[in-house]
């Protein structure tokens, strides 16, 4: 039986089209993917991301332990700093990508909804040092408030000066009396915040944010636009672009892998992969003409299959088809033109950086 997030009733009231996703009943869209997408790029929108999992690590060795199960260097985190990272299997396949919150008395790991149980078991299995591990996902509600107008909206609800809360920093504070963890994070390419709260406050928090955002045309955003927004930034989606059969080096995630830090799970195979070189690379592919590449389609150079599409969509901000896929290294150069084998072959070009280059995040 699919779970409901603490905001489920709000989605029904707002006439969200509800689908099952990662075991949760979630709104895939409200008024439409494109208007919702544009609202976040131009102003501000609110995503229910309560389906995401939260695993809390306490104990005196919490940072040391997190540093052992993740690839980025958690030991470099100041209190209240946030870090994007991955967890690996011993063969360097990816368990999940996640956020690491280094709070004053605990570390919070925020993981993908579909992976929560798997991740929690993985972390327990690899437990060492002085730590306590708890999956608190069911008790936590989470909203993402994203867009260039996110700060003026949220500032109405906090006494702290939000302009001092920088990208990838967090604070434990209160929102008009309700205790929350607030971070300047998101997965849209726009400025914005994520807020974690006890689910019993969900309705109040939702109402406060929507009344604060009324003047900015704030609106709820479904999973459909969440995907197009992350995709235009070329952010990876676990299950599509990365999974246990891919390693972070070929996925372009070497910036969150610190091979020079102490022992961590997956380090040895990564060193070996680095030494012999990756065989394929996750690239961004922009359609040159019409046609939209779709997941699982083959990528060809001439008549030769050189890769496959992991995600494909129409990009509302660019008004063209975009995709990501793994391509054999020799063909993976920026500027290279390839074909995605849709019903009609679609000509695509490998691009550098995000597809959408005008995001407001700082």
């Amino acid at each position, binding site marked *: 039986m699919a779970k409901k997030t603490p905001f489920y009733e709000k989605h029904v009231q707002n006439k969200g*089209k509800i689908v099952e996703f990662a075991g949760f009943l979630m709104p895939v*869209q409200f008024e*439409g*993917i*494109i208007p919702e997408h544009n609202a976040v790029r131009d102003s501000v929108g609110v995503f229910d991301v309560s389906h995401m999992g939260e695993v809390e690590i306490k104990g005196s060795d919490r940072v040391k332990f997190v540093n052992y199960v993740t690839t980025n260097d958690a030991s470099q985190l100041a209190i209240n700093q946030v870090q994007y990272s991955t967890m690996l299997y011993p063969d360097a396949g990816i368990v999940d990508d996640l956020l690491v919150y280094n709070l004053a008395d605990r570390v919070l790991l925020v993981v993908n909804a579909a992976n929560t149980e798997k991740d929690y078991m993985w972390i327990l299995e690899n437990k060492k040092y002085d730590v306590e591990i708890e999956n608190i996902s069911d008790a936590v509600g989470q909203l993402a408030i994203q867009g260039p107008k996110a700060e003026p909206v949220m500032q109405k609800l906090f006494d702290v000066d939000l302009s001092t809360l920088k990208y990838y920093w967090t604070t434990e504070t209160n929102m008009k009396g309700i205790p929350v963890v607030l971070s300047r994070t998101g997965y849209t390419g726009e400025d914005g915040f994520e807020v974690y709260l006890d689910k019993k406050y969900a309705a109040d928090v939702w109402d406060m944010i929507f009344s604060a955002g009324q003047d900015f045309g704030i609106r709820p955003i479904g999973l*459909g636009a969440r*995907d*197009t927004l992350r995709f235009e930034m070329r952010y990876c989606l676990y299950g599509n672009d990365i999974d246990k059969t891919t390693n972070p080096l070929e996925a372009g995630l070497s910036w969150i892998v610190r091979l020079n830090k102490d022992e961590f799970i997956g380090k040895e195979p990564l060193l070996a992969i680095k030494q012999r070189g990756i065989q394929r690379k996750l690239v961004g592919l922009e359609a040159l003409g*019409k*046609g*939209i590449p*779709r997941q699982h389609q083959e990528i060809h150079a001439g008549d030769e299959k050189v890769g496959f599409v992991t995600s494909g*969509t*129409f990009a*509302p901000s660019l*008004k063209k088809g975009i995709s990501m896929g793994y391509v054999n290294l020799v063909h993976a150069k920026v500027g290279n033109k390839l074909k995605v084998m849709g*019903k009609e072959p679609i000509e695509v070009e490998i691009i550098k950086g995000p597809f959408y280059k005008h995001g407001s995040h700082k």
Partner: protein
Amino acid sequence: MANVIDGVKYTKEHEWIKIEGDVAIEGLTDYAQSELSDIVMVELPDVGRKTKAGDAIGTIEAVKAVTDIYAGLSGEVTEVNEKVTADPALVNKDPYGEGWLYKIKIEDAKEVDNLLSPEQYKELIEKK
């Protein structure tokens, strides 16, 4: 609930067909446009193309999904709606009106008997 209008026939592939003498106007049903959501590209057959009922003769791409357009009847394409190729969202906004897709000259009037009535189509989508 999706809108199923009277005065037209339907196919299992979620097209509506309006018969006007020996010409059929075809389009996508309200149910189909709402399932696809945000249509961003419509490719229609060339005028003059001969079709057999059931042929894939065009493509509709939405942000997250793609579907073929299947000919509901055999015949020759006499006109396509250039407005929807220029503004594909018309199919979402007005599927039974301005969002029509193409017209064909009916080759075999007996094929019309194979199409679904509004009641039959309603039943089909309610089962989904």
